[in-house]
């Protein structure tokens, strides 16, 4: 497949300065929304999104139109949440969309809100994205000024308010129910499901939550039609995906590709990754953010779509493709990754809170050359005691790095333990006492 001549979400690459409101309007901005609110029913919009086969870009790839259809009839108010917590290591496309093409996101939110018949939408943005939050605020003001948001939008009687809410820096707050807790002012921890958000979400009201990229697709689907949209991608994964490519490639960055291109092309095509740094061979590819199981160099010919990556035993996840060469130690990589999950574990459930702590303690000693003889079976036990037993997917995700590392590179662990020396019990006979200065 040739590179896209026309982008769907990263349209800043086609249209310079689309981040300016006027430029966005000149290029047909808010036309899809205008036609929708004046000519189409919410059900028709949901129907189009369903037909387009749009799948959630936040990680699970769940069909968006189907999700919208789960809303119980006649229960109001409802809420729409835009998830821009974007904290998965290696993921940075949401940031680019907001930074360079913010109006398309706001239009997507307005369209989706109209489709799910809600009058309040929140954008939950990770706290560190301070400038992006300001960009969004400005874009929202622009939309209010033109009457695309607010009361009686375009004279149709439809009302919608959109608010930006900055998080306080926790990966778990990207998990949909933890996000809702956080938005409600509580400690950011996932909720028990069911009830699912579509039934009882924010403030226990029916709630739809979607990723930034997912919502940014909607204006193009409505504006250009289902037919046009489905010409990109595959049957089961229609459209495009903004991949965040990082690691030891020559040109890291966000690349929007139609679903279905080979992984190799993303890494090596000159217009994308441009090959490996120093032409070293690929050792590990993590195709969907830190939570995704690792792939090795023999999997470079898989196609980048939900089905293709799943068939290879991993997942497309957030579309963050991390490519690493031989300079990386699998042990250290597993340690670093699990350090992340340990740091981000919310603490609610035992296997994740204690398991990530346990794993990193063992991984640290192995990776620093102090592994114990039976650390490999121990690691297997610990992640198996976590796998499938955690309260939410964060804990499950923490299993991926260590399981992948032990499965794909057992010899590195064996070597690290064999060549290392267990710590000679540096138990301090006399505890260190800080001597207070006079």
């Amino acid at each position, binding site marked *: 497949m040739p590179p896209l001549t026309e982008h769907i979400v990263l349209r800043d690459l086609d249209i310079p300065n689309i981040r300016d409101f006027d430029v966005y309007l000149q290029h047909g901005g808010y036309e899809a929304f205008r036609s929708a609110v004046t000519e189409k029913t919410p059900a028709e919009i949901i129907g189009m999104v369903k037909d387009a086969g749009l799948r959630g870009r936040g990680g699970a790839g769940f069909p968006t139109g189907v999700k919208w259809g789960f809303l119980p009839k006649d229960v109001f108010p409802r809420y729409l949440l835009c998830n821009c917590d974007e904290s998965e290591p290696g993921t940075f496309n949401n940031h680019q969309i907001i930074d360079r093409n913010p109006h398309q996101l706001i239009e997507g939110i307005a369209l989706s809100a109209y489709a799910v018949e809600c009058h309040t939408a929140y954008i939950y943005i990770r706290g560190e994205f301070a400038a992006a939050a300001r960009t969004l605020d400005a874009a929202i003001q622009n939309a209010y000024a033109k009457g695309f948001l607010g009361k009686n939008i375009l004279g149709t009687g439809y009302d919608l308010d959109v608010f930006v809410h900055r998080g306080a820096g926790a990966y778990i707050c990207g998990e949909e129910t933890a996000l809702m807790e956080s938005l409600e002012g509580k400690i950011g921890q996932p909720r028990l499901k069911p009830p699912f958000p579509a039934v009882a979400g924010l403030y226990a009201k029916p709630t739809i939550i979607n990723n930034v990229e997912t919502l940014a697709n909607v204006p193009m689907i409505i504006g250009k039609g289902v037919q046009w949209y489905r010409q990109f991608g595959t049957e089961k994964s229609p459209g495009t995906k903004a991949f965040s490519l990082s690691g030891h490639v020559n040109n890291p960055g966000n690349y929007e590709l139609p679903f279905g291109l080979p992984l190799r092309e993303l890494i090596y095509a000159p217009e994308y990754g441009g090959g490996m740094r120093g032409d070293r061979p690929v050792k590990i590819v993590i195709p969907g953010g830190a939570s995704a199981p690792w792939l090795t160099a023999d999997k470079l010919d898989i196609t980048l779509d939900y089905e293709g990556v799943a068939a290879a035993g991993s997942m497309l996840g957030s579309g963050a493709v991390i490519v690493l060469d031989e300079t990386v130690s699998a042990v250290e990589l597993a340690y670093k990754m699990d350090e992340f999950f340990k740091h981000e*574990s*919310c603490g609610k459930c035992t*296997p994740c809170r204690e398991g990530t702590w346990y794993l990193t303690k063992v991984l640290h000693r192995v990776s620093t050359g102090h592994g114990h003889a039976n650390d490999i079976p121990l690691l297997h036990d610990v992640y198996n005691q976590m796998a*499938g*037993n955690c309260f939410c997917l964060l804990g499950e995700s923490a299993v991926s790095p260590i399981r992948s590392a032990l499965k794909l590179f057992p010899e590195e662990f064996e070597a690290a333990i064999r060549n290392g020396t267990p710590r000679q019990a540096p138990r301090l006979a006399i505890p260190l006492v800080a001597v207070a200065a006079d």
Partner: protein
Amino acid sequence: MPDVSVTIDGTQINVPVGTNVVDAARLAGVAVPVFCYHPKMKPVGMCRMCLVEVYTPKVDPATRQVVMGEDGKPVLALMMNKLQTGCTTPISEGMVVNTASDRVKFAQKGVLEFLLTSHPLDCPVCDKGGECPLQNLTMQWGPDSSRFDYEDKIHFEKPIPLGDLILLDRERCILCSRCVRFEDELADDNVLGFGSRGRSWEIISKSTPAFDSKFSGNTTDICPVGALTSSDFRFKARVWELKSTPSVCNLCPVGCNTSLDMRYNELMRVMPRENDAVNEIWVCDKGRYGHRYAVQENRLTTPLIKRNGEFVSATWEQAYSLIAERLGSYSGAQVAGLAGPKLPNEDLFSFARLFRENLGSNNLDHRPGSPADLPLDDLPRTYGVGKGTNLMTLGKGTAVLVIGADPEEEAPLYQLRLRAIAQRGGDLTVVSGYPTKLERSATRKVRVKPGTEAQFALALVQAVAAEKLASEEVLGSGRLKFSDEYRRVLAAHKFDDLVAATGLAREVVITTAKAFASAEHGIIVYGRSAAADPAIPQALAAFAALTGKLGKANSGLIALRPGGNFRGALDMGVRPDAAGQPGLSAQQVWQQAGTGVKAVYIAALNPAAENPAAAQALQKLDFVVVQDLFLTETAQYADVVLPAAAVIEREGTFTNAERREQRFRQARQAPANLPADWQSFQAVAQLLAERAPVAVAARTLKKGAKVFTPEAPQGWTAMLTSDVNDMVTRSVSGYNAASYSALSTSRGAWGRQPNEAVYYDGTSYENTEGVGIQIAASAEDSRTTLQLNLSAPALRPVGELVLLPVARAYDGGDWVRGSKLSARQVPAHIIMSVADTARLDVGIGELVTVSSAAGSITLPVQIETGLDLGVALLPEVRGSTLGALLTGAQTAITVVKA
């Protein structure tokens, strides 16, 4: 609810729809280990201890039919293809649960290994050791060793105070959040929370003062480890050294069942004892920490006789003879007896006998004789909740009307029990003139103009007629009789005027009346502010009767009045209004001191402490006997002081607000072998009987004397408390079935299953010693006619401000001696609205002088944002000298900056 059939570890059982797998397994006799789950709280699925394999019949997505296998049985599929937490998984038809597969065992071992990684394992010095679910579960389901490197353990500073009563050891905490959820869900005190995250996640107190809850002690029970310890008990004893004695708390009319945990003669701790109809598995902090007064050094141990203005020790014989001689020298009308409503029934019964039979006096009261005394009210005897009432079973279909009461302050456990009814779907209306905590849990929060509860109650009665809400059955029975006054009052108070007085919209009154009338069960709880005006209980009784909420289980009145055994005092006849035997009330006694009344015998009351008029009156009397544990303010005026055994040093019975009589046992040897109060009453009576054998028997037994009919007027021959109880069962109407052996009967309370101690250990004590007996309300006898009466509401006094006395749980009473709660007692203060304090230009803590027609006092101000302009609340706490100020149910006052 319909049942569904499930199979758990091969046992097939039927359980109600909605039951979770853990509870279903309990019913099947299978123990699923849990940490975060507690049957009294919503499941949260956090600890992952209860992981089990759950299989459900496979359903064909096309036909929605269960797929059948070749063996003709449904094909089963592992739910979500992984283990499920049993506590959060509701059972469904055909479910098959496996709690003991290798996969489950691996997960259970995993969770326990995880929990123990950073656990300090300081069991040998941990208060929970011996009754610790973490120990128990580790023994049964855990790994036999840990592979975690000792050096990698996380350490926290050892216990840090969460508040003044509870300490937290973060190393021991397994982060199950039971404590936080108890406070949020059950107690409605949002005082605990979490700080930080991950392995640094920790319990924190969010309130000022820290851990500000009247139920905080319960968190130490339900904490599945020794992370929460109480400053009252920590490091005092190992639990296996303790001998527990069943007891009953008499600090308020709930009558919580407790266990007094003793080491030899020392009280180590007080624990709840389960009784689903009373306290479930909880007690309030007052009940848990407020029983240390008995073990104080300054207890009286010998009788004292005043000679030349000084108390000198005397022998019991000297004291008893002097009392008998002096009291016997007056006519019946000249002597009076005041016995406190915290005394057990046996003592109150004996006291009443002593006065009525041996002294020929009907001047009996259980109130201190202050202008703050509540008028007597015995309507619950007739209209009270019926036999078999159990609030724990109520929810949907029940309407509860709480009026003029602040349950958390007056009878703390009702806060939990009434809130729980609302949470289970019951309809809870809270009517009050000022903010109360319970109204936050109400279905309908009704804030009337302060002091207009009477108008509201009368409006309810009017609404019955207007909206045709009367029960056909009750009207048709012909049992209701209406007094002339009833008709006059109704005619004189129009619905619209009544509603207007309350400041409410008429719909509020009507929906409240309708919700109550249409419910299957209707309960009216009224407290201090309602009982102050007799018009209110009367109207409430009429409303309950008309709507058919009487004479049956779970319907009727519940009165909350001061004194843990006020109900017993009324039933035993320590009251000036006994039928056919009218006497002077305590207030009248003080008024006539020195003139009509010459001698007073006071037991377990301290009227001089709060009421300057009582102190003055005491000085005018010829002869005063005070019987108490301590040399109280009142005892200073006595001619003879008698010590007595404390509740924990003897046995007896109390009757609670729902008229449940409950038995408590002796836990401790009294110092100096002090007698129980009734023993002193009997000793005096015996001496009197020797002097004047049957002087008054005939009068006592005259017609209409219904309160009691002693079989042998001279029968002062009790050896044991049970002998007195035998007399009570024979003499006091309604108590005939309440023998000690009957009171000792138990039944499984909240459905404990064998083996449950393993994970609910330390939660509370299983009740094997008796859940008590509820005395039937007289309306339950269909032959009783029900005489309804009404009175005009007390007139709201005209003045700058209206003063309403309010009750406080932490009232600074004598119980607080030696208690960790002493620090929580607040000094006397007046509570005013924002507007009034602004007008007077006074800030929090500044002094004001409050004056009424009766007198004036100076005290600091507190501000309550929810309070109406023109109202002031005066909490009844030690030192408030309310008596100096009150002129009636409501008192007009003026307030100036002092």
